């Protein structure tokens, strides 16, 4: 196990592995999505309070889960790359960010689509929606910083510092927003509801979450291949131009 890990920590070894396995994750994602959607749209009964609109949560909740989970994973990889100077970890962080941002956007979009019929407004300054929005800003900041830095090594390290600072701040932001929310609004709006979520609904959500997970793995592995290829190519190209580079 240990040996494997270190072997695949080198981009040159990881590259073919990623290429070999990533298409399979698309397949898993598609199969799980079919199962989850079937349960969500055909098997799960109509919610007696929310009508059919509640079916949005089969996308919304898994997307929100993924958006938060991917930020943690991204911050973990970025700080790993920063602390131990492992190139592949930083590349993984780079590959995760766009997908995480996409899921954050989807969580916001589907959340407002769900909120309009439930709350009568597309946007409510609810604690969860607000922190999701801030999470979106954090993703954008991370991507913007890395895009602005031309030197890939500097970009990796700067991203590592930013992700680390961001990850430390996420709980602080979350709790302050939650506190702000309880002070400024009564309990008129409460997302924590879901009194007796039928277990079949839970299964649908779980399957969709797994599907999104598989999708993320596929996309991230595919993108990390691109990142590696781009970087190696640049290195080779540099060696041509400047003979003294190592």
């Amino acid at each position: 196990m240990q040996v494997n890990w270190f072997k695949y920590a080198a981009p040159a070894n990881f590259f073919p592995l990623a290429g070999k396995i990533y298409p399979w994750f698309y397949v898993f994602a598609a199969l799980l999505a079919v199962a989850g959607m079937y349960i969500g749209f055909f098997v799960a009964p109509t919610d007696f309070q929310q009508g059919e609109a509640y079916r949005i949560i089969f996308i919304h909740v898994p997307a929100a889960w993924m958006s938060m989970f991917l930020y943690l994973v991204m911050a973990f990889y970025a700080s790993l790359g920063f602390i131990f100077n492992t190139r592949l970890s930083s590349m993984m962080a780079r590959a995760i960010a766009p997908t995480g941002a996409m899921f954050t956007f989807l969580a916001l979009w589907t959340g407002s689509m769900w909120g309009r019929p439930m709350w009568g407004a597309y946007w409510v300054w609810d604690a969860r929606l607000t922190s999701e929005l801030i999470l979106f800003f954090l993703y954008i900041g991370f991507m913007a910083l890395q895009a602005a830095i031309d030197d890939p090594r500097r970009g990796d390290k700067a991203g590592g510092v930013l992700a680390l600072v961001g990850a430390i701040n996420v709980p602080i932001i979350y709790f302050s927003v939650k506190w702000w929310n309880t002070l400024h609004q009564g309990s008129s709006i409460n997302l924590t509801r879901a009194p007796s979520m039928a277990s079949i609904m839970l299964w649908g959500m779980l399957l969709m979450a797994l599907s999104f997970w598989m999708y993320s793995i596929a996309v991230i592995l595919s993108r990390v291949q691109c990142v590696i290829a781009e970087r190696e190519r640049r290195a080779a190209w540099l060696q041509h131009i400047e003979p003294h580079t190592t």
Partner: protein
Amino acid sequence: MHWNSLEAFFAMGGYAFFVWSSLGVTLIAMVLEIWILQSQRKQLKLPRSTVSQDHGNV
């Protein structure tokens, strides 16, 4: 299966716009991301994604 007809399924109990736009945007975002990735792979001359047989993506 509890839908009486295809129309009822598409109408989503009057919430068609909200439900289908959520689903639609999710699908568009994923297809777009995969498409961008594939064109990036092509540009970098990476091998195209192949599982043993052809399949439809999400």
